[in-house]
């Protein structure tokens, strides 16, 4: 993307006022999507995102500058903006870059950008019409097949000069069902760090459409979830969003380094039930949230965050690590060059436990079974989190009964972690886009089926 010698010159200018660390992140991304509504292809979007972000640190100060002008002049002027903002001083570090090859553990078979758009439309239609034809009460379906070819180059004053090409593909089908004047929607959105082979060889797009429609039909016929405090069983896959919101964000350096996390200073202490082991692993081959290197050039790691309830590690980027006195963990991420990198999750999940799913359901006299979860959010300072249950059922006398809609779960991370008292054996992950200060990035969430002994269920 950029030559090593140009990067050295740019970093030299960036560090010319006394920075003790300088970094350049260059990006060229091809972002494409095909969209359907009303049973027709109605939009094909196609964008090229290209630019450079430069960062310099001096002690506990950081400066970031970014530019869309990637000419040599544009880069040098961006570097000068960063250097000037850091203050007055003279160069204290020497920039010598060495090319590094980290290897790519995420092989791609069919690069989506090189496939004719007709092939993508055929896959999208297979998913779309499977949803449309699922049931007469399906009123509308929207579908998107998107592929992103995200090429990054990271060069920094520690000598790193490395590139990574991140190709991701995702199919998103949303179905709207109507029964007795009530409309409800259902969705299914699998994705991976893979090419089109994800939908030609591994996942049948029609299954994606049918799953979206099934959820919509079930929920359109459901009554409202009753409100109250009760035990909740959360199924595997995207259910892992509970850990992502209730705990994951609060273990990121972006809140821990500033003292605004309920888990500050708790390393080595018990913060979760002993049944809980939680891991952030950016090295899973071809997983949606996987990276070879992070956006500061640190190789991706498998980090055990919580082991049998004991807090073992945070997720740390270089700048946050300075305040914390900790090494980076390969979690520095940004949506694009124009966002400022911070610590983020990759593929984050509660590891498999030893309980049988049947036993977990049977253990609940009266409660909620959350089969499909929606998104959520958290305030790391208070630990207060919320998330939505997209498909829920009442459990009565150990049996799954009628579906209920409109449920949400609220609580505090530190409390909920202690109340996860049963953990199933079958770990699965679901795909999400996680939003935070450094933008929207692909992350996996995951878990086996779990039981939370009691939590506030919002409903009516």
């Amino acid at each position, binding site marked *: 993307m950029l030559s090593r010698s140009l990067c050295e010159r740019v970093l030299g200018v960036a560090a010319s006022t006394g920075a003790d660390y300088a970094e350049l992140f260059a990006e060229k991304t091809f972002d494409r999507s*095909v969209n359907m*509504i*009303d049973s*027709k*292809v*109605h*939009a*094909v*979007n*196609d964008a*090229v*995102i*290209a*630019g450079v972000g430069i960062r310099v640190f001096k002690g*506990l*100060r*950081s*400066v*970031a*500058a*970014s530019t*869309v002008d990637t000419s040599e002049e544009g880069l040098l002027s*961006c570097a000068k903006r*960063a250097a000037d*903002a*850091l203050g007055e001083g003279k160069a204290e570090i020497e920039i010598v870059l060495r090319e590094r090859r980290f290897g790519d553990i995420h092989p791609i078979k069919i690069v989506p950008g090189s496939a004719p*758009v007709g092939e993508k439309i055929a896959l999208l239609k297979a998913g779309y019409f499977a949803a449309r034809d699922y049931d007469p009460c399906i*009123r*509308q379906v929207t579908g998107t097949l998107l592929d992103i070819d995200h090429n990054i180059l990271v060069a920094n004053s520690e000598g790193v000069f490395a590139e990574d090409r991140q190709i991701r593909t995702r199919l998103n089908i949303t179905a*709207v069902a109507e029964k007795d004047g009530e*409309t*409800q929607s259902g969705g299914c959105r699998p994705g991976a760090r893979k090419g089109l082979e994800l939908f030609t060889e591994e996942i049948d797009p029609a299954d994606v459409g049918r799953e979206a429609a099934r959820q919509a039909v079930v929920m359109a016929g459901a009554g*409202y*979830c009753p*409100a109250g*405090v009760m035990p909740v069983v959360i199924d595997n896959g995207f259910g892992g969003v509970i850990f992502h919101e209730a705990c994951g964000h609060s273990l990121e350096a972006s809140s821990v380094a*500033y*003292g*605004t996390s309920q888990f500050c200073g708790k390393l080595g202490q018990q913060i979760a039930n002993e049944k809980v082991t939680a891991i952030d692993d950016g090295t899973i081959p071809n997983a949606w949230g996987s990276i070879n290197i992070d956006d500061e050039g640190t190789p991706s790691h498998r980090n055990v965050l919580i082991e049998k309830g004991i807090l073992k590690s945070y997720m740390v980027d270089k700048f946050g690590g300075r305040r914390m006195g900790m090494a980076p963990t390969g979690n520095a991420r940004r949506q694009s060059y124009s966002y*400022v990198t911070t610590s983020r999750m990759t593929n984050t999940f509660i590891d498999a436990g030893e309980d049988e799913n049947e036993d977990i359901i049977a253990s609940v006299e009266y409660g909620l079974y959350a089969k499909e979860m*929606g*998104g*959520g*959010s958290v*305030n790391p*300072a*208070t630990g*207060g989190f*919320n998330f*939505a249950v997209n498909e829920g059922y009442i459990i009565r006398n150990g049996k799954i009964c009628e579906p209920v809609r*409109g*449920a*949400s779960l*609220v*609580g505090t991370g530190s409390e909920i972690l202690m109340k996860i008292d049963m953990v199933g054996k079958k770990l699965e992950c679901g795909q999400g886009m996680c939003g935070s200060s450094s933008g929207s990035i692909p992350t996996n969430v995951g878990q086996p089926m779990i039981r939370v002994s009691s939590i*506030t*269920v*919002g*409903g*009516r």
Partner: protein
Amino acid sequence: MRFEEFKEAVTAAAKQRGLTDYELYYSSSESTEVEAFMHEINSFSSSVEGGACFRCIVDGKMGYASTEDLSAEEAEGIVLRAAENAAVLETAEQEFLSEGGKTYQKVNTEPCPLPETEELVSRALKGQDLLYAADELVTDGSATSTVTMKENLAICNSRGLDLSHSVTGAGYIAVAVVKKGEEMNDSFELKVGPFDKLDQEALVNKAVHDAISKLGAEVAPTGNYPVIFEGKTMASLLMTFSGSFSAENARKGLSRLQGKEGEKIASENVTILDDPFYPDNLLQMPFDAEGTPTYTKAVVDKGELKTLLYNLKTAAALGKESTGNASKRSYDAPVEIRPFTLAIQAGDLTEEELLAKAGNGVYIDSLQGMHAGANPISGDFSLQSAGYLIEDGKKTRAVKAFTVAGNFFDVLKNITALSDEVKLGGFGASITSFASPAVLVEGLSIAGK
């Protein structure tokens, strides 16, 4: 190359390909943000962004392509890709480009002066002094930020349209983190506008006061109560469901307001205007994302849905005129429909009178998880909330960690009173903003302890 050069190169490429109906949309922005923590500047960031979107009508279909790379190669590239993308579309609807030569209303705000870096730094640091001085419970993690931004927008097309508009803004953010024993809480205040009109101390004190007032908050009791949504909170609820006012969503069966124009959808005391020239909003727009002149309109008048919001294509398909509400989420996004500043108009009660009217209930001044706990199509919501109990007509104990559940369209019908002070609250995609007074709603479901 610069935009003017790129524009010429794109026009030449379009003509060379024999295209006759096309548009180039360009937006660029420059922004600077300074953030202070623990009495020191923690970070400084400055960004220069921009990108162009080319769209063209080929055989009656509109193809799009976008790029941030303003090179000669890409000038040809986006023209080629947009034409190719048009070829695979299946929609049979008529597509439109705006004609040039229309007149546009003038914005009524002065351009916001952009402070120099030194002022950004000194105000961010002063905020730190103010924060720590405000109360001894204020703790590390409390942040103050100053932001400036300048945005430029240009639209030109093959029909003689050639428009441009710039907006500037400055903003001040205070995040107060307070700690009492093991319990922490935080609160966030944002003010957008010229710095010479900014009362920094009042802003910081409000953030600190709000953070402290929720310490020791109890979980609200489960039940059905009258609820007051504070103005900014109601504005964010309105934002969450604002897609329902899009005629395009209605036409696609994605809005409960489909076919309701001319019908009563809200209580008599509810009037909602969409105002592209909203006085308190710096981001005023004389034209929409298709170049149509914008104007102020009543969307809901005394409870009656007067009009949905339209762009050119949706209006033509439904035999209406565009309301000037075409909107792009970002330069590379397709044209959709959004309001500018959608504002529920003030009522006539003071907040004290509103509380007295509520009697016993819950006052909600924080809603979280809108993207998850709300269904923008059905109107159902179940949202994490915080606020105060209302007992005997007064705000009393702070409450948190509960949910409020209901349906937005029922809320509109069940608003029994509104306060006399409108607050600008939710800031949505593109330059969309929302405003509302505090509203009293009969009977919503609260889930707590």
